[in-house]
């Protein structure tokens, strides 16, 4: 936090202008922390800051109240310049109970602001969090921070006292009290939140009043308490001009898929089975029925992928989404999509694995499953999402490749991209190009026959749909004679078909952009990454570049096939570093394909990279650490 400009405000208070601030709200899962985090994000985005968020919640809807396992947090960074991550260190930590303090204090930076609900530090609260004595009394432990112990529960009850709420209802407003205080501290305009409260609780006017009163009471405390001597301003960011909105990765995937279909004159079919963190894609799409989107919440992920295959056979732009465990169930059905050469997108919002793993945490450990996790030789294109906003473009690309090349395509997202939010520039409708495709209406064989596996120069077969007279044909999971599509157990044909399917997918490399480089065209170290780690890796690489180090970044969107120039790029650097949230899956692919001695930085903690972790690794690989 750099104090650019300080002015006195009244007799005891100064206003500091700062470039970027990281706030984390944390409390019990029942404390409404996700809600206030989202509100702060909205207010900051609408104000014009760049924002990046990291919601972090337990897998249990309500773990026992007050325990360490039940702590839910929402971190966000808002800034007056471009940012790509929610921040390594927290400037202001709001802790609603002892468990939240215990699990989050280590991330608060020295000199940072700590705001706690002092009312929640009773004896039993302390023991649930495993504290033997009250940490708020431990002056040594809190010495390095600006600590504000505020009786939030009592003050909130006072604020809503006349509204006839039960005690429980009154206490549920204390998240808005905390939010009001932080709004005051960072000079935020609360009107977006006030409007939200009015719409959200429209049916319960007393709750509208209560939450607004709590919000105001929080803000008043900031104003009237002598302890808050500084009050901060974060001016709007200088983003490229245009209209913006806040978007999460899951929203962007849904928008991208609907857009791809709509501009191509098609309606989208989506089948899915609820699973964290992919469910919001289903939720978003099921709202968009006026685009002709047909969503089916089916009985399991096997039904989801196979219904997708059926819809694609019928001529729809078809999609299914899930996360690791569900994707595992889909394997056989995806293979059917590959052998029938029908277009569809399979979205995998990756989470910690194996098995049920860490349902609400992020990881990148399904890359090899996407490449190889099916029986037989079963090649598929893979596209990945780098940021929440980028998921919009990635989803459209996945659909384009599926339809143009008649193949199932994986779209890889992850928990961090899916739930994270950032400002997104609303696209220009005229920039959104339709996908080039047609449904064959005429026979393509010599004597009026339809040959479903007669390929074009890209090895792509035609897409004739039921209802077209004269083109009746059968597809299926048994090996096909090329051209006729009849069942064939012929040895040479099988080899030919395997090679043809592989060639078709490999050929996509000629129809995707070359791999861009961020930084010099050659040098000492090339950092290669993919997916949701983009923000922290990019920030770390830029920091190293500013420090004068010879390092460039290749962040890969197209993981199968790789961009055609990737091998060449790798050769131009002395060393290659591949940071991933897995044991080294991209690294394995790069080593296998390009015989390059790539080194890894591997983190499997269910959390994104900190910028500092990547930065340190860069220095270490440059021999500068």
């Amino acid at each position: 936090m750099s104090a650019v400009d300080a002015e006195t405000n009244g007799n005891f208070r100064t206003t500091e202008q700062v470039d970027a601030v990281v706030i984390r709200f944390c409390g019990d899962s029942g404390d409404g922390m996700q809600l206030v985090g989202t509100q702060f994000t909205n207010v900051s985005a609408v104000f014009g800051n760049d924002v990046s968020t990291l919601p972090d919640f337990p897998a249990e809807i309500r773990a026992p109240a007050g325990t360490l396992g039940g702590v839910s947090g929402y971190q966000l960074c808002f800034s007056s310049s471009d940012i790509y991550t929610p921040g390594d260190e927290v400037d202001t930590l709001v802790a609603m109970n002892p468990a939240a303090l215990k699990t989050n204090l280590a991330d608060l930076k020295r000199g940072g602001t700590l705001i706690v609900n002092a009312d929640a530090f009773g004896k039993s609260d302390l023991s649930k969090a495993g504290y033997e004595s009250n940490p708020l009394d431990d002056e040594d432990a809190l010495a390095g921070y600006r600590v504000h112990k505020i009786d939030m529960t009592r003050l909130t009850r006072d604020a809503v006292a006349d509204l006839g709420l039960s005690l429980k209802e009154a206490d549920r407003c204390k998240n808005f009290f905390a939010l009001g205080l932080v709004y005051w501290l960072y000079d935020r305009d609360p009107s977006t939140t006030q409007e939200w409260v009015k719409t959200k609780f429209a049916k319960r006017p007393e709750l509208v009043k209560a939450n607004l009163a709590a919000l105001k009471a929080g803000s008043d405390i900031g104003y009237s308490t002598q302890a808050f001597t500084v009050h901060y301003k974060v001016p709007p960011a200088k983003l490229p001009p245009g209209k913006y909105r806040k978007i999460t990765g899951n929203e962007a995937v849904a928008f991208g898929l609907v857009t791809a279909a709509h501009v191509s004159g098609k309606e989208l079919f989506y089948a899915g089975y609820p699973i964290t963190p992919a469910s919001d894609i289903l939720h978003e799409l099921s709202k968009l029925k006026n685009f002709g989107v047909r969503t089916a919440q089916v009985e399991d992920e096997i039904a989801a992928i196979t219904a997708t295959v059926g819809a694609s056979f019928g001529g729809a732009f078809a999609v299914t989404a899930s996360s690791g465990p569900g994707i595992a169930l889909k394997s056989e059905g995806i293979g059917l999509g590959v052998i029938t050469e029908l277009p569809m997108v399979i979205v995998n919002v990756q989470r910690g694995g194996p098995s049920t793993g860490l349902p609400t945490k992020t990881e990148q450990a399904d890359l090899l499953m996407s490449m190889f996790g099916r029986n037989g030789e079963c090649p598929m294109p893979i596209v990945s999402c780098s940021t929440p906003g980028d998921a919009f473009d990635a989803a459209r690309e996945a659909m384009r490749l599926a339809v143009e090349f008649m193949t199932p395509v994986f779209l890889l997202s992850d928990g961090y991209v899916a739930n994270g939010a950032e400002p997104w520039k609303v696209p220009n409708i005229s920039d959104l190009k339709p996908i080039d495709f047609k449904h064959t209406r005429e026979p393509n064989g010599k004597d009026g026959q339809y040959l479903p596996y007669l390929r074009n120069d890209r090895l792509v077969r035609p897409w004739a749909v039921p209802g077209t007279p004269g083109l009746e044909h059968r597809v299926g999971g048994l090996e096909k004679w090329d051209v006729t599509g009849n069942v064939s157990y012929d040895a040479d044909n099988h080899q030919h078909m395997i090679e043809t399917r592989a060639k078709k997918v490999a050929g996509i490399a000629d129809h995707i952009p070359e791999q861009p480089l961020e930084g010099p065209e050659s040098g000492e170290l090339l950092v290669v990454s993919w997916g949701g780690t983009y923000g922290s890796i990019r920030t770390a690489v830029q920091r190293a570049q500013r420090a004068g180090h010879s390092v460039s970044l290749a962040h890969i969107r197209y993981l199968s096939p790789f961009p055609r120039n990737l091998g060449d790029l790798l050769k131009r650097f002395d060393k290659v570093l591949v940071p991933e949230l897995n044991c080294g899956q991209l690294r394995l692919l790069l080593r296998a394909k390009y015989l390059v001695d790539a080194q890894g930085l591997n983190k499997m903690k269910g959390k994104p990279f900190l910028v500092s972790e990547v930065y340190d690794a860069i220095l270490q690989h440059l021999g500068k650490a």
Partner: protein
Amino acid sequence: MSTSIDLPVLTPKDFASDQEVRWCPRCGDYSILAQVKKVLPTLGIPKENFVFVSGIGCSSRFPYYMNTYGMHSIHGRAPAIATGLKVVRPDLQVWVITGDGDALSIGGNHFMHMIRRNVNLKVILFNNQIYGLTKGQYSPTSPQGKRTKSTPYGSVDAPLTPVSVALGARASFVARSVDVDIQHLCMVLERAAHHKGTAVVEVYQDCNVFNSGAFEFASKKGEKEENCIYLEHGKPLIFGKERDKGVRLNSQNQPEIVELGKGISEDDLLFHDEKADDPTLAFLLSQMRYPDSPEPMGVFRAIDRPTYDDEVNDQVREVSEKLGPASLEEMFNSGDTWTVA
């Protein structure tokens, strides 16, 4: 499904594909294929609007032999594939071809959910009480004690009754027939084809290689009349070569076989009501299984119930009318927006 006047007149031959049929000689599948080819031309539906979707098994090779659109898919999943297809293409008549293992073992989940949703699909369940394609293991419909390759000492599994399963899943149409009872099978298939909603037709199918003769009780002339009760809507349940026996409900509301005459008249018998809202009687009938009792054949239930594909598409239409035409602009700008100058 609309019938257009200038539709070419189709014959069974038009529905034969150029692929050689590869079932074992005398397999019951041949007869079922022949009856389907007979029924389709009577429906007034253009050939290109039929789709046959199957799973895996001997029976599931069926689509290759039909000159219609088709998909031979993966084991057990045909109902889900057909559901996706039917939702996006309600204009098509979609048939699901499945076996006893395909529908009730690996695909049991999809089978149940297709039925409860009442997707407008015609389903032929080829029940040979055996796994044919994998060469003769017992299936979920094999009788307890059945000796097969995988149960050399007899199976200990309790079997399912497909008709009961379908009724339990709220089937709007369930019927049973036998492969070689040509007229009866044609009648049942035709009824299924005209039904709106999931129409489940269980066909007893002889696998003469691994389970030969399993359904002779229901196919042999002279025996079947004694062993089967041919259901007719609104008619009393009478059976027997001499039509001298019937079924009535006893004081515990259980079906009981009685002889007609001797003080019992037709009016005392159970009358079949395939349109009954309450599936209880249909379920009781489905539980009458040979050899414990004569077995009902024909249509157990045929009721009207909204179909899933209609409901999905109606909702899309209603919401579209309410929200007005789709606009990407509007979608992108939903929620709070701000402008950077």
